[in-house]
């Protein structure tokens, strides 16, 4: 590239010759240009379809592409093809900007005021042509590929260039795809449509002017213009979208008429840009038109070799200040930002002002970007969802969480393992593998329990230590099992599990001696705990019936004792049901027992009992609360994840959440509901949240997730109404709420209350006897997130001493 694109200052016509050495290309370059032009022509003709271009066009293209033949050819072909199509398309052009003789409007409409006319009287507008300077401003940076002519497949485009290309494509699709609507064509369409047939005499002067302008400049910088939003080339304010408003002031109209000859001449001259038509009246200076946006560009007669004089300065920068902008489409900034965020896989907060049109535009962009090597092609996911509405729309099965409780070694894990295996939630192979491994360490009967007991220690010892969640589905319900440990040391874990449950399955070992010991042990404690945590419905699975030969009397004895106990614990008889079963054999779990000895049981099997559960309602519209059950590393993509069950409220991707008591905020990167990715989650669902922007040190199990708008308070002392299971006195206790487990002490026995009415029986009792209700004050060593009404459990020395409701 050796053409001088510096200022070419012609002081005067006479001076011009002298400046030759400086201003005009040297012979060598011209020769080179000739060569290039020839080859481009050849290429164009040889290509499919064959097109022709004027020498001038080729020169321009070469100039823009720095003599890159390939690019120029590409560009020219693209342009010509388009023009070809357009000429074929029927173009019924109607005018919008009809002049209305209504006059005079006292105050000229600002928007339709022609600046050229405004400055008409200024002396510097009337400078004789030969005295005018011709100012060319060199673009600051070479505009590589910006014209969109670069081969799309070849070479790597910059992101910006790619975007521009995509946008250009979209634009062209839009303008060609929607053939001119006869009634009110968009300005852009009209302009595009006009280009090939300037002979049409538009009614509007300004349009005619624009058309001529367009045709003149389109060859040189058509692509450039396309880069802009709309293809309207003219910058006349009159051609704003509001143009149809027939409010053109006479001030405006009259001078335009005056300039008509010039415009018309230009129109005639349009197809042949090389022909410079001397203007009758001096048009505004380049400066003026640059500043104000001209209707008529500089038409100073110049030697044809200084073609660049025709280039509007504004167009050099690819900006048309007055060009109408389609505000329904995303702004260029938005497009770029969206594309960037898509590429990075981040989800920017969506602008609320975004309309459907904007989203459609984005989709187009995304389509246009398919050719690019940007990995993530997914459009920006829907955000700002109305989660509750989404939830209403969703056609999920009814879901239920249930906790499996009972004394240690009652066969809880095995029973659930059997349930999962029979429901097909576990495949045969895994099960066989467990069987072999379990037999290897001499615990063959534990194979089914291993489905849920995944921990190495649990397997080695044959004891469930922590809760395990698993899910299976029946025809109309999806169940989540929470398998709780039965050992008394792990009651804290069981409390965590029970706090996630809608109903409970109490497993009872029916074998001789075991039932009795269990009743004294955790059978009782667990049942009391789940009841005090708000569980209403309980299914009693009388397990290991095969060990007692399906003895109906044994079953009835157990049924009698347990139902008596459960009723006193506060379960309503209609919410208690009994199923005799065998977890190891699988009898009466998903299928009826084939053992003839068990023929007396004609009731439901366990799975049938489970299905009788009703839909459970959760407080969806309350503020968000979720107790963190676990903090873990979800994998390479999700270095920090938390799991738990949403207690209330709802949540969606991209939300900012607050962790209490640390008070740190985090961003929800993604959500998994029951192991499936989801955009949102509502109360009652078991979720995994993948977080960002928080240090894991601020996350502990037992912490509460909430929103900064409705944070949960942390407290160190609270009053609670409890049901005492053991003697209460001022003593040290552990306070449990779900996973939350903190030490504290009962500082004051406020009053013992009447069980039914809640009236105070005795103020400040010395000691509260088991089975009575009391109001006590509890102090904690550390501040914890608790708020009324919350169900809490007080334990001391490994026993549950009380459970109650925070006040």
């Amino acid at each position, binding site marked *: 590239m050796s053409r001088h694109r510096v200022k070419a200052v012609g002081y005067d016509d006479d001076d011009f010759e002298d400046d030759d050495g400086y201003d005009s290309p040297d012979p060598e370059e011209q020769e080179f240009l000739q060569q290039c032009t020839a080859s481009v022509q050849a290429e164009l003709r040889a290509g499919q379809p064959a097109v022709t271009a004027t020498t001038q066009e080729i020169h321009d293209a070469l100039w823009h592409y720095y003599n890159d033949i390939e690019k120029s050819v590409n560009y020219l072909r693209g342009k010509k093809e388009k023009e070809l199509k357009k000429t074929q398309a029927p173009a019924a052009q109607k005018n919008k900007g009809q002049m209305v003789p209504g006059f005079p409007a006292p105050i000229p409409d600002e928007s339709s005021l022609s600046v050229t006319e405004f400055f008409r009287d200024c002396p510097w507008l009337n400078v004789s042509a030969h005295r005018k300077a011709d100012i060319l401003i060199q673009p600051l940076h070479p505009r590589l590929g910006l014209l969109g002519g670069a081969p799309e497949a070849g070479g790597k485009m910059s992101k910006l260039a790619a975007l521009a290309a995509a946008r250009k494509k979209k634009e062209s699709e839009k303008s060609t795809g929607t053939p001119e609507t006869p009634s009110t064509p968009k300005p852009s369409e009209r302009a595009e449509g006009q280009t090939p047939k300037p002979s049409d005499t538009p009614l509007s002067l300004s349009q005619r002017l624009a058309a001529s302008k367009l045709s003149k400049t389109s060859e040189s910088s058509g692509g450039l213009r396309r880069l802009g939003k709309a293809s309207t080339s003219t910058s006349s304010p009159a051609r704003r979208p509001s143009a149809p408003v027939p409010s053109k002031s006479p001030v405006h109209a009259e001078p335009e008429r005056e300039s008509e000859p010039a415009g018309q001449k230009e129109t005639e001259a349009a197809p042949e840009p090389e022909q410079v038509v001397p203007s009758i009246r001096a048009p505004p200076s380049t400066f003026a038109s640059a500043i104000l946006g001209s209707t008529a560009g500089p038409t100073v007669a110049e030697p044809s070799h200084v073609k660049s004089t025709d280039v509007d300065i504004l167009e050099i920068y690819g900006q048309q200040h007055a060009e109408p902008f389609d505000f329904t489409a995303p702004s260029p900034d938005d497009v770029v930002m969206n594309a960037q965020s898509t590429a990075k896989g981040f989800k920017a907060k969506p602008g609320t002002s975004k309309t459907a049109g904007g989203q459609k535009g984005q989709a187009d962009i995304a389509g246009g970007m398919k050719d690019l090597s940007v990995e993530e092609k997914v459009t920006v996911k829907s955000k700002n969802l109305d989660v509750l509405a989404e939830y209403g729309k969703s056609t999920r099965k009814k879901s239920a969480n249930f906790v499996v409780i009972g004394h240690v070694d009652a066969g809880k894990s095995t029973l659930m393992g059997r349930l999962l295996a029979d429901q097909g939630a576990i495949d045969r192979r895994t099960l066989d593998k467990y069987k072999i491994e379990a037999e290897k360490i001499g615990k063959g009967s534990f194979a089914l329990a291993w489905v849920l007991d*995944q*921990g*190495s*220690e*649990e397997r080695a*010892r044959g004891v469930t*230590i*922590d*809760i*395990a969640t*698993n899910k299976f589905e029946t025809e109309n319900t999806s169940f989540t099992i929470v398998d709780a440990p039965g*050992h008394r*040391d*792990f009651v*804290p874990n069981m409390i965590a599990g029970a706090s996630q449950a809608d109903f409970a399955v109490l497993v009872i070992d029916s074998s001789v001696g075991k039932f009795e010991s269990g009743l004294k042990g955790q059978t009782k404690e667990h049942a009391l705990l789940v009841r005090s945590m708000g569980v209403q419905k309980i299914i009693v699975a009388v397990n290991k019936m095969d060990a007692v030969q399906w003895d109906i009397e044994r079953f009835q004895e157990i049924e009698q004792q347990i139902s008596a106990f459960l009723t006193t614990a506060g379960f309503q008889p209609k919410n208690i049901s009994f199923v005799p079963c065998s977890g190891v054999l699988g009898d009466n779990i998903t299928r009826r027992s084939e053992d003839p000895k068990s023929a007396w049981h004609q009731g439901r099997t366990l799975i049938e009992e489970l299905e009788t559960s009703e839909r459970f309602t959760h407080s969806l519209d309350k503020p968000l609360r979720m107790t963190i*059950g*676990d*903090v*873990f*590393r979800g994998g390479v993509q999700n270095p920090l994840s938390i799991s738990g069950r949403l207690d209330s409220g709802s949540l969606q991707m991209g939300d900012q959440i607050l962790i209490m008591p640390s008070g740190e905020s985090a961003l929800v990167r993604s959500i998994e509901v029951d192991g499936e990715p989801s955009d949102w989650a509502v109360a009652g669902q078991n979720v995994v949240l993948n977080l960002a922007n928080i240090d*894991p*040190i601020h*996350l*502990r*199990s037992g912490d509460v997730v909430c929103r900064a708008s409705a944070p949960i308070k942390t407290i160190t002392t609270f009053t609670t109404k409890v049901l005492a299971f053991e*003697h209460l*006195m*001022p*003593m*040290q*206790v*552990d306070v449990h709420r779900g996973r939350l*487990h903190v*030490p504290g*002490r*009962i*500082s004051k026995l406020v009053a013992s209350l009447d069980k039914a009415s809640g009236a105070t029986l*005795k*103020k*400040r009792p*010395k*000691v509260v*006897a088991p089975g009575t209700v009391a109001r006590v004050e509890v102090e904690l060593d550390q501040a914890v997130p608790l708020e009324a009404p919350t169900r809490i459990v007080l*334990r*001391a*020395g*490994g*026993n549950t001493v009380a459970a109650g409701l925070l006040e």
Partner: protein
Amino acid sequence: MRLIKNKIEHGGSGEVTLCPEEPEDMWHAYNLIRPGDLLRASAIRRVTTVQDTGSTSSARVHLNLVIRVKNLDFDPQSSQLHVSGQIINETAHTKIGQFHTLDLELNRNFTLEKEVGADGEGVGWDSVAVEQLKDAVDEGGKRRAEAVAVVMQEGLAHICFIGQFQTIMKQKVEMSVPRKRQGGGDHDKGMNKFYRVTLETLLRQMDFNTSITSGTNTDGVRPVLLASPGFVAAGFHKYIQSEAATTTPGLKRLLPSIVVVHSASGYLNSLSEVLQSPAVKTLLADTKYARETKLMDDFLDQLRKETNKATYGPREVESAVDQGAVGRGGGVLLVSNKLFRSQDVAERKRWVSLVDRVRDVEGGEVRVLSSDHESGKRLEGLGGIAALLTFPVVDEDVDSDAEEVNSN
């Protein structure tokens, strides 16, 4: 603590000179020294002198200062006692009435003088103070029994030193251990990391030298109690064993003194359960806290049985003493030593007279429980004072109601 000089007069005034030898002696000193007492100890004070020319020079000088105690500040973690007050003796560098904070140091004598003022503004060496002094001096010399306890649960460990008079929570290890998940091995990894950090912390707190060259002498190693619900303590024990077998053979000296016991949770609340476990009882049979823990359990048992042979709370106990229920044949008064630390002279006198009365007049047993012990903490929850009675005393509801009205 060594008693150097004892000049307590009959009336209760007088002074003693003591030499603290162990960190725990600071705790005794903390209980002995009360606001209003005179304390003489060596001190380092920075003295700034102004020359005639106006230039200043400051120097650190060793002084023997006597202060009238205003405030005590005890840091149980590092066993440091800072006593602040006004200087009452004149020296070359200080003036009377200037304030100074004395830092009592180990193996440096201090002299404590208590006086009974004419108008009763001081309490002098009352019976409780003399008792505390006896405890502090420990003529029997058999108070070596000390243990280190690690109370832990998944992701949480409390390392504490159990002395005769206090249990010091030295350090808490807290770590987020991933729970077991489907197909995740993070839990085991997390537990291993947790064990490692806990062991490192424990060794640091114990000043345990893990190098092999430090000999095979196991004398200096205190018993280490590992307590937890479930299998955490056992797992930790196993971890220490494997570490001893592989990377740090020096740990082998520690192994014989480790006892694994059960506790209900990983919090200090469950230390009582640890101390009651048979394994620990045989290990630390003769310690004061073992007896105190036993007494507290008896008391709570009585309370639970609702025999009315146990009562707690200041007013209730006083009324029981008035009725003669805390006397010969099983009456025990349990008092937290926190009550005697009261700033209020009248308050202290009230409790001292109650103690004297039970012991001397009624013939009952008096136990002053250390508030820095687990049993003392339990007692504190009950108002700092409780009593086992010789016969059932029925509470008067009216009385307690009246008290509530008063307190409101």
